[in-house]
């Protein structure tokens, strides 16, 4: 068992080494939300006024963009697993005395760590000019974990069907666009038109956004138990599907 964790650590280490080569990309992932909050958040602060839970729009948007950052990163992270299969990188690993589960879990662990670091860095910067803080770090970790797992899994699932990088990127953007906009990331769910709101309520990411917003601003739209339940489901269900798809992909 300890061997298993060492292997998970080894795979995670390789992922982090790869990310180290993409330093500029990571800097961009922090700068982009900060710019958006500065330019859009403060631009709309006055026209929008105070939102539910007593926070201003800049803080509302800032907490939503935390989720956008980790979920878009995670979906790409899932894709890299399939890339590894395609580029043959996994083949010698499959010969090595290493379990397949440790490969997947190592990859996810690296992504979880990266998500946590990104959120921490973003909060540190955004706290300078919004009311974003970290009153509930425990719930923040749950939200980060659930959203990251769910989107890594979504990336793996999507990549099992779309094998080239271009179509993956295109479809990933188109498929996630409505999910993001209908999640309460950019504007509140409560004030959406009823049809739109129904879609938002059916969107599991809505509850992830709500949970992380509660953890960072204290404002929330749904009961805590509902947020937690949906986020747990978001972590488990896609992951189960993705593991099955990945096993099939390796077998074929």
């Amino acid at each position: 068992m300890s061997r298993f964790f060492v292997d998970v650590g080894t795979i995670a280490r390789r992922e982090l080494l790869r990310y180290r080569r993409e330093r500029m990309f990571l800097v961009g992932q922090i700068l982009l939300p900060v710019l958006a909050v500065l330019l859009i958040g403060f631009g709309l602060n006055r026209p929008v006024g105070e939102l539910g839970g007593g926070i201003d729009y800049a803080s509302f948007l800032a907490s939503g963009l935390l989720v956008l950052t980790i979920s878009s990163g995670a979906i790409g992270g899932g894709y890299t697993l399939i890339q590894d299969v395609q580029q043959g990188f996994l083949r010698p690993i499959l010969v090595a005395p290493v379990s397949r589960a440790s490969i997947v879990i190592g990859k996810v662990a690296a992504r979880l760590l990266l998500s946590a670091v990104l959120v921490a860095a973003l909060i540190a910067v955004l706290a300078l000019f919004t009311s974003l803080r970290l009153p509930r770090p425990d719930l923040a970790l749950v939200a980060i974990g659930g959203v990251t797992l769910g989107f890594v899994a979504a990336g793996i699932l999507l990549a099992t069907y779309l094998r080239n990088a271009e179509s993956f990127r295109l479809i990933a953007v188109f498929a996630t666009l409505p999910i993001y906009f209908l999640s309460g990331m950019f504007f509140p769910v409560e004030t959406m038109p009823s049809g739109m709101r129904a879609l938002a309520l059916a969107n599991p990411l809505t509850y992830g956004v709500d949970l992380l917003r509660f953890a960072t601003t204290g404002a929330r739209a749904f009961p805590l138990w509902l947020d937690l339940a949906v986020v747990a489901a978001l972590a488990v269900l896609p992951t189960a599907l993705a593991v099955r798809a990945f096993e099939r992909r390796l077998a074929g």
Partner: protein
Amino acid sequence: MASSRARPSARRKKASRGRPLRGPVRARRGGALQRLRDRVERAAAVALCVAFVGGVVWVVVSSPEPPRDPEDLCAVFREKPRWHDAARASAERWGVSEAALLAIVFQESSLDTELSGRENLDLHARLYHLDDRAARIDRMLDLVGMRRDADRPVRQLSGGMRRRLEIARGLAHEPRVLFLDEPSLGLDVPARRALWGHLEVLRERRDLTLILTTHSMDEAERLCDQVAVMNAGGIAASGTPRELASSVGGDSIEIEFEDPERGASLLRSRPDVSAVSVDGRSVSLTVESAATRLPELLDVARAGGVHAVRMREANLEDAFLHYTGHRIDPEGNLD
């Protein structure tokens, strides 16, 4: 997984073990459905068994003990068509019980191109839970002459350098058996020569068996102790390169004489000489192991007045063509 397909024992029994040369083994033709299933099973790893179909030469280099009988290895690959399954199965069959005691260098690069060579090796050393990693990695890098470029990202390296890194990686856990799937494919001449040099060094190590597939007769002739010519899923012939080459007819010698008729009649009197023919002033003949016989033959035929001698040793390519019925173009590809 293909574990349910256990049919190869019948053929293995037919092929008598240990004898160097065998007649062609006919391929078993499965139905279209079976072939399709095979394809699906193999899709994840382009394997030796896929190469079998094309009539690839399959080479055992420097064998301390494991794969005496190439047919044995083929049988393993028929049961387990995917490289990694087959490798584990053959390790068991040869009593190299730990899967950790073998390694595969795949035809396509399987390095992480974003990491450096050293980081790639380190990753694998960690996955094999090896101790003393840094020193071990340096040793392996030296072995393939890659110490200097070890810290460059793999994506900046040439094909030959990558192949050498993969060999270093494969050797890091000190395997007893190293599989190489067409190691020199796609390399230019200097890179191939460098690779061969390193493989020749490895070949001298008595604790390591190298098994490689190749389309290149040069490679087979230069590197191998044992060669098996594969055709249509079976072994068409096997033996040392020399045995194989001479099994399809001896070496040919062409001697130019002052008096060709006299020369020819003197040579015809020798029992080890065959197919003597006269064409103008030159006499051609066939003999086994020309290099050792030639001085003696020239002595015998001296009365004919020898002007010039040309000699062409039977080579592996002749044997390959003979046993497979295939042709190979100048670039080493099969028709």
